[in-house]
């Protein structure tokens, strides 16, 4: 049952939220030991919240557009009084004193949080293998990764543990796991969704967004969480138009570009290539025009990203110093306490990125690395601006491959980073992008096609996504 159907039937009193939640908890109990989508399952809390929703309906009031919908929340989003780990030992057991704005909004809309979803530590990774609490397994093949960093959110939706999920996407962390788990994942325009209460990784790139089984469900959740927030000065200034009404508008007359550089990447699997061609064909069949386009500087996006994101992370993660919250390893003096706490609390990938970022920002290297990467970001914005003069949306693979086996890329950080080669340019530009399931590849595993749009182009992006969903093989 889709989130749209659940909310509709709960609001109208046809179904009890309690029954909806019970079904999802039952599925979770049956398979969570195998999948490990959650760092924390909130079964009792979810049942109580469902009773409140049912009482609201019984009184004749409307609980809101997400009435009774079970939702998984990535564990890098703060939930007041409920442990929030960010997949890290350094925050194990920490209970935040406030709740993220996007979570407040889903609660206010009648949504029910059923658990905190597992993720790579501090959202750094592409497989959830970097979670300090163990990896999540792909529901389509438990010997393979679900993608990452929001792997738990993707797996929760794909397993039917939750109808919707929240994730965060800094370089592909919503779209890539969505593709690998066969669900819809949306990285909105930078600033569309408040980052208040999202534990910061790279602040100029981070963005919260939805996971869903269908495009309409993703629109339902994004419509609830999008919009200005006085607590995030980078959030959009103006109210944003709803996406749900545009889903059926079709693609007749739209101009679609296939990004050459992102489609011809090294190591792309033949089935993934074929899915792009098939998706383009489907859109042409529905009245769109399709051409191949070039975004030349996107070839340098991965290099720029792996300087910019670690640089911002090294600064953001300075706050984990053993003073105010989280882990402390005691020592005689404060500097040694800081260093021992961080050594004990952070995993290898987080340390690697802190080291890389600190180096890229350090005296003598700033101009060679960080300043260059920022200039590449300008080139990328220019290239996209040029392409969007002739195209309404762009198509690209989400991930060059289907889900890969555990351990396949853990020995080589660069190989893991290359999983994000198709998603990273969007984050550097601040643009929206979404992954839609489109056919299958090696081993019958899901393949995702990525739709990209210019800043605040969510409406046209969702129209194209809806058309792809309607024609997906």
């Amino acid at each position, binding site marked *: 049952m889709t989130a749209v159907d659940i909310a509709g039937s709960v609001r109208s009193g046809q179904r009890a939220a309690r029954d909806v939640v019970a079904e999802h908890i039952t599925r979770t109990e049956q398979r969570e030991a195998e999948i490990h989508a959650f760092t924390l399952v909130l079964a009792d809390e979810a049942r109580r919240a469902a009773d409140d929703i049912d009482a609201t309906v019984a009184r004749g009031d409307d609980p809101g557009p997400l009435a009774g919908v079970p939702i998984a929340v990535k564990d890098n989003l703060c939930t007041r009084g409920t442990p929030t780990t960010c997949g890290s030992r350094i925050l194990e057991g920490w209970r935040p*004193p*406030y709740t993220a704005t996007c979570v407040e909004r889903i609660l206010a809309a009648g949504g029910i949080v059923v658990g905190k979803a597992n993720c790579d530590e501090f959202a750094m990774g592409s497989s959830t293998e970097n979670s300090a609490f163990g990896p999540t397994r792909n529901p389509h093949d438990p010997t393979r990764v679900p993608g990452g960093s929001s792997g738990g959110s993707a797996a929760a939706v794909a397993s039917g543990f939750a109808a919707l999920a929240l994730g965060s996407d800094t370089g592909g962390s919503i779209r890539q796991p969505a593709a690998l788990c066969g669900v819809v994942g949306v990285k909105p325009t*930078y*600033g569309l969704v408040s980052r208040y209460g999202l534990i910061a990784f790279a602040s*100029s790139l981070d963005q919260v967004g939805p996971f869903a089984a269908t495009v309409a469900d993703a629109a339902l959740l994004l419509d609830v969480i999008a919009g200005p927030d006085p607590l995030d*000065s*980078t959030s959009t200034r103006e109210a944003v138009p709803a996406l749900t009404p545009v889903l059926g508008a079709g693609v007749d007359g739209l101009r679609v570009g296939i990004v050459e550089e992102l489609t011809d990447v090294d190591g792309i699997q033949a089935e993934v290539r074929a899915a792009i061609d098939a998706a383009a064909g489907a859109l042409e069949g529905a009245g769109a025009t399709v051409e191949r386009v070039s975004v030349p500087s996107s070839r*340098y996006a*991965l*290099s*720029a990203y*792996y*300087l910019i994101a670690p640089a911002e992370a*090294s600064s953001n993660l*300075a706050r984990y110093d*053993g*003073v*105010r*919250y*989280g882990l*402390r390893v*005691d*020592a*005689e*003096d*404060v*500097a*040694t*306490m*800081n*260093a021992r706490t*961080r*050594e004990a609390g*952070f995993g*290898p990938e987080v*340390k*690697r990125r*802190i*080291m*890389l970022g*600190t*180096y890229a920002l*350090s005296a003598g*290297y700033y101009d*060679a*690395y960080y300043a*260059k*990467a*920022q*200039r*590449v*970001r*300008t*080139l990328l*914005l220019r290239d996209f601006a040029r392409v969007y003069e002739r195209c309404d949306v762009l198509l690209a693979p989400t991930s060059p491959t289907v889900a890969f086996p555990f351990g396949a890329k853990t020995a080589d*950080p660069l190989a893991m980073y290359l999983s994000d080669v198709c998603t990273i340019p969007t984050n*550097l*530009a*601040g*643009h929206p992008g979404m992954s839609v399931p489109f056919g299958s590849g090696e081993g019958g595993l899901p393949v995702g096609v990525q739709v990209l749009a210019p800043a605040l182009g969510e409406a046209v992006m969702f129209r194209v996504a809806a058309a792809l969903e309607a024609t997906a093989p």
Partner: protein
Amino acid sequence: MSERITRSDVEHVARLARLALTDDEITRFTDELGHILEHAADLATLDLDGVEPTAHPLPLTNVMRPDEIRPPLPRDEVLAEAPSVEDGRFRVPRILDAP
């Protein structure tokens, strides 16, 4: 771009980042960071003269809000999560005259 990162560079950066890395970690990071930075060297081939840096995707500067008093985080709830507290404040090891 630059010379390959050395073991002593890694030790220096670890001090800047306040990470008490083990010998094994220093060895591994020297190798891995070198490898990653080698990949980043492709940026050196680009002509970036006259290209302005982009620090942020939005053209925002100095976002202002009304100067109104709002309730702060609940003090007891915040202190309850601290590793060590004394007299309603965060307690830390010695800072001055540290060895």
